[in-house]
């Protein structure tokens, strides 16, 4: 009996361990995986640095406090306030971009969205691939287009790092318009393509964290909760088995 119970438990656990990660990743169907690891603190720190250098000029993280970033990413108050906080906010305050909403509308046609929850709404894979898919397109108002999010209103914020990409179009055939086949680097940036992939992965990791800061605590607490419940369930089974001897004898 105990053997049967243990094997059933092992099977259930095994099934879960296999299936849960499939459901744990957030969104981004059909796109190459970003390969982020939200528990990689160094990656989070690099991502935060990129965000505060290249993104916060236009995008807020209105649900994220500087103090929370500091404690979750293992940074001191001084490090955050002097290296990351360029908005002049207090340590306990949220990350609010200084860009006036009116001028943003005139420049880009719409207000840059808040990015706190972007990774949960669109998925980390979307963010990662989006950042890698900008190309020059003179037909667009800001001169940029994107294959993952066509006609995006944002110019490539990281072009200095990535360099300039241009699109290689397929030939138009009757009934089919010409489509973008692939993107090519026309002018290299400060990073190699591999380095740039790493940098955008870090940025996606940081946004995965900002979408749910509790993710770090959640997983580490979860391990103990699950282990405890497995023990408790096993004990409960032993108790049941013991009492049910009465019933089996009586039959």
């Amino acid at each position, binding site marked *: 009996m105990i053997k049967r119970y243990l094997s059933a438990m092992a099977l259930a656990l095994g099934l879960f361990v296999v299936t849960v990660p499939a459901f*744990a990743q957030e969104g981004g169907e059909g796109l190459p995986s970003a390969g982020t690891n939200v528990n990689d603190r160094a990656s989070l720190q690099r991502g935060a640095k990129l965000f505060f250098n290249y993104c916060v000029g236009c995008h807020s993280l209105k649900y994220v406090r500087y103090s929370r970033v500091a404690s979750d990413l293992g940074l001191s108050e001084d490090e955050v306030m002097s290296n990351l906080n360029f908005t002049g906010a207090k340590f306990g305050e949220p990350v609010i971009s200084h860009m006036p909403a009116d001028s943003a509308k005139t420049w880009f046609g719409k207000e840059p969205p808040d990015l706190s929850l972007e990774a949960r709404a669109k998925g980390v894979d979307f963010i990662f691939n989006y950042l890698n898919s900008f190309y020059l397109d003179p037909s667009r108002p800001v001169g940029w287009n994107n294959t993952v999010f066509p006609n995006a209103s944002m110019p490539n914020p990281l072009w200095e790092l990535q360099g300039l990409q241009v699109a290689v179009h397929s030939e138009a055939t009757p009934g089919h318009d010409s489509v973008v086949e692939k993107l090519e680097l026309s002018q290299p940036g400060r990073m190699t393509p591999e380095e740039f992939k790493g940098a955008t992965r870090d940025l996606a990791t940081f946004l995965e964290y900002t979408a749910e800061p509790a993710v770090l605590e959640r997983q580490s607490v979860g391990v103990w909760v699950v282990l405890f419940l497995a023990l408790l369930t096993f004990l409960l089974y032993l108790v049941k088995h013991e009492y049910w001897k009465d*019933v089996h004898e009586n039959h």
Partner: protein
Amino acid sequence: MANLFDWVNERAPNLAPTFRKHMTEYYAPKNFNLWYYFGSLAILVLVNQIVTGIFLTMNYKTSALEAFNSVEYIMRDVEWGWLIRYMHSTGASLFFVVVFLHMFRGIMYGSFKRPRELVWILGMLIFLVLMAEAFMGYVLPWGNMSFWGAKVIISLFGTIPYIGPGLVEWIMGDFLPADATLNRFFALHVIALPLVLLLLVVLHLAALHEVGSNNPDGVDVKHGPKGNRWDASKPLDAIPFHPYYTVKDLVGVGFFLLIAAFIIFFAPTFGGWFLEHDNFTPANNLVTPTHIKPSWYFTPFYAILRMIPSFFGTAIWGVIGMFGSILMLALLPWLDRGEVRSVRFRGMGYRIALAVLVISFLSLGAVGAGVTAELIPEWFPGADATTLENAFGRIMTLAYFGFFIFIWVYTHFGLEKTKPVPERVTMHD
């Protein structure tokens, strides 16, 4: 302690016997199997929803302007707020998992049959109220799916002839889902419906304990031989709830909590099934989410709604079909006139029909959730995906209703060839 007990006993002499009758010394058949865990689990989840719900209201703001922010406040700024919220959101989905399995158990073993029709009807009422409760709770975070879900579901009432359009405005208290809608849904979700739900649960249990539990063999233990090792006047094949089913149900509770903990701590959104991606964007009355679909537990019923086309200039047929699919379940005791309760001893026709019911229900769920819309173009490239999906969905809708029609014909005209039901219950371990 003993004095206190005596003091209470003197003033309320019926309290202890009532407790014994319904809890500790409730005699239940001894051959319950896995399927019999889901009743007690449903109570566990109900308690979880009430406790975590009370704590969520402590920080939730009932206003279209603040609702979304307050949910993120709970997720980030309130200590352990994320855990309380995930317990509530995961609990909501698991509530339906448990209730669907509990209902299927009832169908499979004929627990709805005489003399338990009242138990079944009360259960169906619980299911209806639970669906209303879940829908209104889903609206409260005021994300974009909340908003458009509310809009679509409320619009169902607009298909009712004459009064529809006025009714829709009356339910929303505005011309779109708005602050007024959110506030009334909050009131219904946190107090009105839970009170009704609790009352119905008490009645469901009281009605059950009046007639006694059914069992996997469908054998009537109450009218069988008497006398067991605990009580000479009780049925031979019954055992007292405490300690035997207390300890057994607790094993089920342990397993259930283990699964729930996995989801809460390692996959709280469950890949967008328990918490949808589009609901992490605030409500926006100008932009409809691209993948608009109801929560997974509504998808079978939603698929029936979608698969029934409108004709005679009205879309009410789909709505009738959707509510009809639930009504059919409630009518089961009168549709299924077979004498034998449990599937174990019923005719081959019934077994096949039951399998068809399960397959059609799951398929309709897949259609409603947009799974088929995604898979069909992959499996049949080049084919007209919409036509294929509609054909599939309509066949499954017919299969679902077909079950009920078949059962009526099958049992009313004596076509069923049943196996002999044993005198006493069987135990397999």
